[in-house]
């Protein structure tokens, strides 16, 4: 180095500088802090500590050559701001946090400051700076912020769920959770039974929201497990994230086409489990392939579990209310039924008691014809009472399953032949026509009960059609059973009543307004229905144009 004149003081200064640099250098070399010095005249970095290489992942030489590499390392989003700050603080005073991108693509957060170095004459020839890697710090800051945000979110969510009056409110409350609010659609699916040992067969949508009413709804349809292969899509233990429905193997073809119609591209499924009952699913749908961080999942799981419990409670409440209403209704029906029975029993008894006490009256002497008439009435009413009691007992036994029905292989022709004389007696002044085709297959039936049904039907036909008209008994073989029909040419039964006639005590209002009591007790068809159904058949009134009634019932053929 050439020594200028007057070197002594200069050399002293340089020595002092060197000494302090010697103190300074080990410090600089060992700190994780990047220290540098920049010469303002040349705008070049004259010194940068080794930590630069570790943090910026670039050589110091590259920086000494040109400070452009420093600028290039700044994250594009922060570059404008930092360059502006650097320009503004050319002579020191820069204080910023910014991101750098290392050559391998990783991002680091730096906190940097510069300050001027004053010469003895007060001029600023150089500035010094330091940069501290605060990436960890930032991460912690970010985590704390996110935890705080989440805590607030959870608090708000809890309040909203607490205020919910229905499952719908709970789903809407979930909208306030970040990411959930970005979803295009959310739905709560309910299985038709909790998924334990037995897999449910269907599920329905309990409640749904979507961010646009232009899109089709999931709700309103019932989804079959079989068809959509939900067993491969619905998972119990954890949420399932489907980032692209086109490629994910959990999604069956049917499900894919359903979701495509809904414009869902990715979705996440949460199992709804409360009190160890897996009762449904919560799905969140997105219209674009969406990236979710795995660490977010555990937060979402907690949130959904909270919602699941609230929804479960609403479902329980609903079920209980329904059950209570059902029980009340059933009780009402029972009370009404008992009242009807009481009335029905008392009516023939009134005649019996009445005419008996009439005959016993001291103040009137009845002539023999009247006496005979009264006694006949007593007798008839007693028969009516007996029939009523028999019917009631039959009905009661059928209801409780204690009526003995013994199905055996029977030929319909035989049953009809057996009961024919009694049917003809019943038909009275009606023409009874039997129409049985040849070669009917045998049926599985209890002959006594089939006779009882035919008896009842023919009796009704006779009661409800004018004298002299025809009553027809016919049969035809069908695929799995034989259908038997009894037709009359009476006034017919209006469509509104065709279901009701099978109710106990229900009697059709005759057009001529004839008192119902003349028609019998009203239990016959109810009993026929129970008898037929107990043997595996069904009974109904035919839809037919024109007057007259045809009642049909079926009996299963052998091998069913």
């Amino acid at each position, binding site marked *: 180095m050439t020594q200028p004149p007057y070197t002594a003081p200069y050399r002293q200064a340089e020595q002092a500088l060197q000494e302090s640099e010697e103190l300074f250098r080990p410090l600089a070399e060992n700190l994780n802090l990047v220290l540098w010095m920049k010469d303002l005249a040349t705008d070049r970095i004259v010194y940068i500590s080794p930590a630069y290489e570790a943090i910026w992942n670039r050589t110091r030489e590259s920086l000494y050559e040109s400070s452009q590499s420093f600028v290039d390392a700044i994250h594009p989003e922060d570059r404008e701001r930092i360059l502006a700050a650097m320009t503004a603080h050319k002579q020191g005073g820069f204080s910023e946090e910014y991101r750098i991108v290392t050559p391998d693509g990783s991002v680091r957060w730096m906190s940097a400051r510069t300050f001027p170095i004053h010469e003895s004459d007060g001029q600023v020839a150089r500035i010094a700076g330091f940069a501290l890697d605060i990436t960890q710090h930032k991460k912690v800051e970010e985590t704390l912020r996110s935890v705080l945000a989440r805590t607030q979110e959870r608090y708000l969510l809890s309040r909203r769920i607490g205020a919910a009056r229905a499952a719908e409110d709970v789903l809407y409350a979930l909208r306030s959770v970040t990411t959930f609010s970005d979803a295009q659609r959310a739905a709560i699916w309910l299985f038709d039974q909790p998924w334990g040992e037995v897999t449910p067969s269907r599920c329905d949508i309990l409640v749904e929201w979507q961010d646009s009413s232009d899109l089709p709804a999931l709700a309103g349809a019932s989804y079959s497990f079989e068809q959509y292969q939900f067993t491969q899509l619905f998972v119990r233990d954890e949420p399932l994230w489907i980032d692209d429905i086109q490629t994910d193997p959990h999604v069956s073809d049917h499900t894919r086409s359903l979701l495509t119609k809904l414009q869902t591209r990715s979705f996440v499924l949460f199992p709804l489990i409360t009190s160890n009952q897996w009762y449904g699913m919560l799905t969140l749908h997105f219209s674009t392939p969406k990236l979710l961080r795995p660490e977010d999942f555990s937060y979402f799981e907690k949130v959904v579990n909270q919602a699941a419990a609230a929804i479960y409670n609403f479902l329980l409440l609903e079920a209980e209310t329904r059950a209570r209403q059902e029980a009340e209704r059933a009780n009402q029906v029972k009370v009404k039924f008992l009242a009807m029975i009481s009335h029905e029993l008392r009516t023939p008894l009134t005649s019996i008691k*009445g005419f008996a006490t009439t005959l016993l009256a001291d103040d009137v002497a009845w002539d023999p014809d009247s006496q005979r008439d009264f006694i006949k009435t007593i007798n008839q009413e007693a028969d009516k009472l007996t029939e009523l009691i028999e019917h009631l007992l039959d009905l009661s036994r059928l209801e409780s399953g204690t009526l003995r029905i013994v199905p055996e292989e029977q030929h319909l022709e035989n049953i009809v032949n057996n009961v024919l004389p009694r049917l003809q007696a019943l038909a009275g002044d009606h023409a009874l026509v039997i129409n049985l085709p040849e070669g009917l297959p045998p049926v599985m039936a209890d002959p006594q009960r089939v006779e009882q049904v035919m008896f009842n039907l023919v009796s009704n036909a006779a009661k409800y059609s004018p004298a002299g008209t025809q009553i027809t008994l016919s049969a035809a073989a069908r695929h799995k059973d034989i259908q038997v029909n009894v037709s009359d040419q009476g006034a017919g039964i209006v469509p509104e009543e065709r279901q009701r006639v099978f109710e106990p005590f229900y009697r059709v209002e005759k057009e001529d307004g004839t008192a119902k009591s003349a028609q019998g007790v009203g239990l016959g068809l109810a009993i026929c229905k129970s008898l037929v159904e107990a043997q595996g058949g069904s009974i109904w009134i035919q839809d037919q144009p024109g007057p007259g009634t045809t009642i049909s019932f079926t009996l299963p053929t052998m091998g069913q």
Partner: protein
Amino acid sequence: MATILVIEDDHSIRKLAAVNLKARGHRVIEADTAETGLAQWRDGLPALVLLDIKLPDLRGWDVLSAISADSEVPTTPVIVMTASGIDMEVSARRFPNIVKVLIKPFDIHDLVRAVEAALGRSGGP
């Protein structure tokens, strides 16, 4: 001799009442429905009505209301026949012209006594 209107849809019970009342010297008009009953009541102006409250479609109550409410015809005493005793006790208070509630099945003597009491009270025609 008083005219008694019997409104009862069961033909045996109707016959029971008619036969006993006629044998004791009363004139009996019979009706088996609410419509016929009310028509007979307006035309025949009976001194007493014997009414089965459980006519089809609960029309017995309609008859009772009509008989009680009609201001043109003076109140006719009514003897009600019913299979349900308890309900009637309460309802009878609503209709002051019900003079007796007979619960089925009844002894014919009770009916006869009630009729004679009702006619005696109202003085008969």
